[in-house]
């Protein structure tokens, strides 16, 4: 489904702030596979998702979705394959527009927008059906401006919008990180439910080790712009959170040891 081959990305090349965010990342996702991504700050998790989504072009390597190479496609065109939820609940919705207007925009993801009325009567029924899945009562507030909703409600709405037209790939970038623990749990539950219901191929970045091991069937760990660990379902079942932390320490520790060796030479 998704095939990422040897992608690298350096920000501010040649400048004082030069930083290699991705260093030859290879990743393949099967259809319907749900993969969680963990790693420390600056490990390249968000950069990987943004590179796949087309926020910026990669320096080297290729990205394929199904048979199509999408490297050269601008972000808005890749959107026809990809649904996204961002870390910041404010990022995924238009605050000054109503819930139904936001959903209407989402129904047109990847489709041509014409001079037809955006929110039609039959759309409203469809929106209500989908909103009911969230169990937040938003189906009764179709004409409420999204800016009036709480962070958790907005994030749940963003999740719904990202999956309203079933995407080939769902990218979740720490989408529960800025919510309070209770709301975060609720949004994770919704995420799991939606992913299962529509059998979405998903790449989910999380800082929550428990979520990382519970959701989906595979977990990858990133450090210094590389994938340093790739656990399949069987391996994950035998892994506890402390194990995972230990692996992370060990894996990034090795990297440090490598640096020391380089310096010693």
């Amino acid at each position, binding site marked *: 489904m998704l095939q990422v081959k040897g992608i690298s990305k350096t920000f501010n090349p040649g400048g004082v702030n030069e930083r290699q965010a991705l260093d030859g990342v290879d990743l393949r996702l099967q259809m319907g596979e749900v993969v969680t991504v963990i790693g420390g700050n600056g490990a390249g998790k968000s950069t990987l998702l943004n590179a796949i*989504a087309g926020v910026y072009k990669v320096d080297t390597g290729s990205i394929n979705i199904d048979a199509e190479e999408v490297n050269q496609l601008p*972000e*808005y*065109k890749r*959107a*026809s394959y*990809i649904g*996204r939820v*961002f870390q910041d609940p*404010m*990022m*995924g*919705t*238009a*605050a*000054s*527009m109503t819930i139904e*207007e*936001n959903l*209407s*925009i*989402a129904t*047109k*993801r*990847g*489709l041509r*927008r*014409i*001079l*037809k*009325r*955006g*929110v039609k009567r039959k759309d409203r029924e469809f929106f209500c059906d989908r909103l009911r899945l969230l169990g937040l009562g938003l189906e009764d507030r179709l004409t409420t401006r999204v800016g009036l909703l709480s962070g958790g409600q907005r994030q749940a709405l963003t999740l719904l*919008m*990202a999956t309203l037209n079933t995407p080939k790939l769902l990218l979740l970038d720490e989408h529960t990180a800025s919510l309070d623990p209770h709301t975060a749990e609720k949004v994770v539950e919704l995420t799991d439910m939606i992913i299962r219901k529509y059998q979405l191929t998903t790449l989910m970045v999380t800082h929550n080790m428990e979520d990382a091991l519970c959701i989906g069937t595979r977990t990858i760990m990133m450090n210094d712009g590389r994938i340093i660990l790739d656990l399949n379902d069987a391996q994950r079942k035998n892994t506890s959170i402390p194990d995972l932390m230990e692996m992370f320490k060990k894996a990034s520790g090795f990297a440090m040891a490598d640096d020391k060796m380089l310096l010693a030479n």
Partner: protein
Amino acid sequence: MTSSIWFGALEQGLLYGIMVLGVYITFRVLDFPDLTVDGSFTLGGAIAARIIMEGLDPWLGTALALVFGLGAGLVTGILHTRLRIAPLLAGILMMIGLYSINLRVMGGKAMLPLLRLDTIYTDVARVVASDWAVLGLGVLVAAAAAYLLYVFLQTEMGLALRATGDNEQMSRSMGVNTDSSKVMGLALGNGLVALSGAMVAQYQAYSDVGMGIGMIVVGLASVIMGEVVFGNRTLARTLVAVLAGSIIYREVIAGVMRMGLPTSDLKLFTALLVIAAMASPMITQKLKPGKTVERVT
């Protein structure tokens, strides 16, 4: 009554209101501080005046003003989206460039008088009482523009335009070509501005190369005053507020002029008005601690 300055201000409020709708699209909907407006307003006036001077149909002149206004906005949009020129600078470049173009359109003259020539108003005055020609046409065109905007901003394309101004990142992730949206919004806005310029020039019976100076600030003042008085809870309400804001602005101007403020001080007065409107949320915030207020842009 029809000759009073208040009535004149009402007429002007409607004619300039079409320009304010244009500023509303660029400044508020698209969140793009577009200074092209100063040039495209004059462009509209210049084109209409020239066409009328040439003895051609004033309706043709007014329609051409709209079309060339669209074109001016299109160029601003391309400067910004293709050449990546910052919004303010793109607008300033257009404003300066249009100054020369406007002079050329007016045949090198700084002013084109239209006295005793046929305008759209003299045409209408053949059908209705002449005192009401300007008001009637002003209401008709302003209401039509506001209604069409109301419908357009709820279409799929219109929603994409609004989303682009609200949240570009979200728009792109939803497959909206935000560059196209911006170009479209700027074209639409400047089209309305130029149409307003054409109607104002025919109303005052001359076009002047300086008639657009400060128009963006006038537009902004009107949008803000309208929103303060009438609110912006729904789209329909906002559009009505924008038009009403333009009328309020003209009435206020008529009032201060009646109180003896010289015409030459009007621009300073307008600037102070906008500053006061922009500062008011800050001042309210200072008075009521603990309440956060979004910055007015």
